[in-house]
């Protein structure tokens, strides 16, 4: 088995910052594994601005923010980047198995930093019943369709939840000429950043229903409409409040969940700022869900430093 000092799983903002920091703190053998075909993670599809205000004191787009770190990583020969590399096995003894086109590799690391990010909650996770037609997307997938693939996933959009990606996509769809029928949020206030609420919904006159939830999705082949219910502050349905909204697309923006199945399946527990196994660290959205990438960067620098200290 090949031996490496530090293996970092995930080449998004967290993994890249951890790699740079580990190097700056003295680690000279770093393998950065990224499952996608490029570094930068989800920043690549975030073409809107608002990144870097805290960290770089500049207003950047997602890809610009990512590029700053991609450049740094590229200029450090001690960081080996392996793209299209997906980790399929993690063990408590720090054995890492990953696949990439042409290879299955098993590596024994002295330290590991997990930076695997998060995924969006699905319609199924919040138990919205009804039918299962085409036209139900996570807000992130819709973002990828428009910003990366140049495709418009729908024309009459209903956004479920007022998470940041949902708000940003409400604006994006409007700019694309689609009609955003409403944003429906079960809580009494937005779960996204206030600035997104103002700049993405209010400025475009998109109706926002707080204290409301989707009770059912209708449509045989494609989404046709949803039914909406008013709820009280404890999420109890208010009788007689049911109404319907016509739409061809339902965008889910109801929260993110850390993607730490590898950690879980290895029987590793997540503790304050670290894991139950000495030498296995975590950072970024797989550790906790962040609002701002700037904060991810700061905390991931710490994870890189901790890993470097552990290796000393």
């Amino acid at each position, binding site marked *: 088995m090949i031996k490496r000092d530090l293996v970092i799983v995930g080449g998004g903002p967290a993994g890249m910052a951890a790699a740079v920091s580990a190097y700056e703190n003295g680690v000279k053998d770093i393998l950065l594994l990224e*499952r996608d075909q490029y570094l930068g993670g989800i920043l690549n599809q975030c073409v809107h601005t608002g990144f870097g205000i805290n960290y770089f004191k500049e207003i950047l787009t997602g890809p610009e923010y990512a590029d700053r770190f991609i450049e740094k990583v590229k200029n450090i020969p001690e960081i080996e980047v392996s793209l*299209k590399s*997906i980790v*399929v*096995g993690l063990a408590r003894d720090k054995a890492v*198995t990953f*696949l*990439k*086109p*042409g*290879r*299955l590799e098993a590596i024994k690391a002295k330290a590991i930093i997990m930076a695997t990010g998060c*995924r*969006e909650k*699905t*319609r*199924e*996770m919040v*138990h919205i*019943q*009804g*039918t*299962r*037609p*085409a036209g139900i*997307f*996570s807000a*992130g*997938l819709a973002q*990828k*369709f*428009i910003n*990366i*693939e*140049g*495709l*418009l*996933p*729908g*024309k009459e959009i209903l956004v479920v939840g007022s998470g940041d990606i949902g708000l940003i996509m409400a604006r994006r769809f409007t*700019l*694309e*000429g689609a009609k955003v029928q409403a944003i429906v949020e079960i809580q009494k206030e937005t779960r996204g950043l206030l600035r997104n609420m103002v700049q993405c919904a209010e400025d475009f006159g998109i109706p926002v229903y707080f204290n409301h939830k989707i*009770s*059912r999705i*209708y449509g*045989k*082949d*494609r989404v046709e409409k949803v039914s909406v219910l008013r709820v009280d502050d404890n999420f109890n349905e208010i009788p007689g409040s049911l109404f319907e909204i016509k739409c*061809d*697309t339902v965008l889910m923006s109801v929260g993110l969940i850390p993607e730490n*199945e590898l950690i*879980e*399946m290895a029987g590793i527990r997540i503790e304050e700022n670290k894991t139950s196994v000495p030498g296995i660290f975590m950072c970024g959205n797989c550790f906790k869900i962040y609002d701002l990438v700037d904060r991810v960067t700061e905390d991931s620098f710490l994870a890189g430093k901790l890993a470097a200290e552990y290796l000393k």
Partner: protein
Amino acid sequence: MKTYDVAIIGAGVVGTSIARELARYRLDIALLEKEEDLAFGVSKSNSGIIHPGTQNPPDSLKGKLCVQGNFLIRKISKELGVDFKEVGELIVAFNEGDARELLRLKKEAGLLGVTGLRIVDREWLRKNEPNLNSEAVCSLYAPTAGIISPYRFVYDLAENAVKNGVEVFTKTKVTNINRLDGYFEIGASSGVFKSRYLVNAAGLFADEISAMLGVNNFKIKPRKGEEFILDKKKTDLARHLIFPLPSRISKGVLIIKTADGNPMIGPTAEDVEDKEDFSTSDIGLNRVLTSARRLIPSINDRDIIAYFAGLRPVAGSDFIIRHEEKSPGFVNVAGIQSPGLTASPAIALLVAGILKDNGLALKKKLIFHGHRNKTIHLFAAPASKTRRLIKKDHAYGDIVCRCEMVSAKEIRDAVKRGARTMDGVKFRTRAQAGRCHGSFCTTRIMKILAEETRMPLTEITKRGKGSEIVKGSSR
């Protein structure tokens, strides 16, 4: 126009089983399917259980064909390279009254010829099914119960049937049938077909097909079942299929092991009117959770990653498999609800016999290619095999669906084998079926589909026309 010897309407597990069985003989066979892909009707929502035959009256056609099918499917799944796992089932008793009922079930199943049955006690259950409710007093254990992927079974049956000369026509909805002099003229959305014999395996619509020939002696009533799929990381939730005592109309809410590794809970049983109502409900979810937790109390609704509803085609209490004298040459295969998947190979044999009794000459072909190379699924392969596969073809190492570990190679192969829609890819490979529900891999799969089929991305659908994934290009 070509006159087929046999036309079969409906390419679910029943229709494809019959087609593959008849393909052994020197016959021209057409298999007609109204949907964009095979197994898109009743079969796609099947639980994948190969029943031992424990919950059927001893004199029923269902019972006999189930026991026979349970035996036959082992050989067929080997020939086709479909994974069949004999996991065994437990029917759980919670009190003395239940326990007496188990003895009755055991006796009835014994009469049908189900082997290996025994009553297991609390001690055995604690050791062999640790998550089971500790209030269970005993269970009827049927070791011959198994699991299979219902849709992959259909695809592989069809592929093998095609290899042996069967012609499959999708997007072919039958709209009218005339019985002319010695043959049937079948009008369909994609053209007109002629055949000497006609087999109706149209599932939910079998009564409507039969009525086209003036045979109105049964009605299909849909009975909805909602099922909820749990995350693959809960794969060890149960070691066996776990059943409560059956009720009059259904086997109850079960804990189901699946060939995909994800446990599943359900189904409900609710008579509905609409043959296209596949909606799930909060009531269904609550009912399933309550009943499933009676069997395994630790089930957490946060582990639910997907759900769906299926419709069982109910026509009375038993299967209807018969030649209709009123329309010579016409065979109805209707009301095939549970245990239809298990019974399907036996149904195919029975139908072949009925056709023969009614004058169809069954002459064996010189060569029948019964064997099919097993489809590769990385999620089911050990690391050593994965290593070899990736070495042989790099694209096996190019993972598209991260949640279920499906490679670009598997997706490309699925399209080459006939998948034309996103659901077709999902049912064949499991890509998009995991915990992120396609959020990360949808665009990549669309691109592979588009490349292989030369369809524009805007025409890629979820499951056929009208279910296009996107509405056009962005600005």
